[in-house]
């Protein structure tokens, strides 16, 4: 069945270091991927997205890499700051015939930034 999973439940990094959060997906038909950041007590906040016709996309301090061959997605955060501490979710959707856009989420990785 479909699943989107994250490799590590918790990632601890030193302030100023780069963070890499990984995600694996199983549905080869998935063609749109999105990363969200969720702080305690809040809804998920959009970070960055990527379509399957790309393998890399950059935002402000964040980069998403997509490897369709091994069905792997990663989020890189440069110069991690204390405000980056949160749970990060990857999500995917297959914009195929059903075309509803519903997202399938992974379980989340907790990022802890040490001062």
């Amino acid at each position, binding site marked *: 069945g479909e699943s*989107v999973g994250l490799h590590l439940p918790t990632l601890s990094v030193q302030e100023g270091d780069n963070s890499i959060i990984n995600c694996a997906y199983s549905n080869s038909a998935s063609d*749109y991927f*999105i990363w*969200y950041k969720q702080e305690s*007590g*809040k*809804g*998920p*906040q*959009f970070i960055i*997205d990527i379509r399957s016709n790309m393998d890399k996309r950059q935002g402000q301090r964040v980069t998403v890499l997509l490897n369709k061959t091994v069905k792997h997605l990663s989020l890189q955060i440069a110069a991690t700051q204390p405000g980056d501490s949160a749970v990060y*979710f990857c*999500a995917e*959707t297959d*914009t195929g015939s*059903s075309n*509803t*856009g*519903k*997202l*399938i*989420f*992974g*379980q*989340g990785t907790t990022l802890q930034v040490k001062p």
Partner: protein
Amino acid sequence: GAGVSQSPSNKVTEKGKDVELRCDPISGHTALYWYRQSLGQGLEFLIYFQGNSAPDKSGLPSDRFSAERTGGSVSTLTIQRTQQEDSAVYLCASSGIAAPKRRQYFGPGTRLTVT
């Protein structure tokens, strides 16, 4: 504000009671989604609206769950005869028809506790 809003932010109810959760999407967004997030888990899709119609209800866990959307805007998720396993955070997201049309923006959620 211009974001997705949800009310109430918290709801405590007794087992067996009915509850209604409200979502106000971003103005102009035609697509609306409901998700559920159990403690420490990822998000689980419930239902998708395009305008006032719901072409995908596949995530509703039982017939105690229903949702409607009126005027292509506000949506209400109703849970009848609540059970303890219904306790979770219920999140609403909306998406516009313009590119990037798959990007979903989430509200803060309603935390439901069934005692």
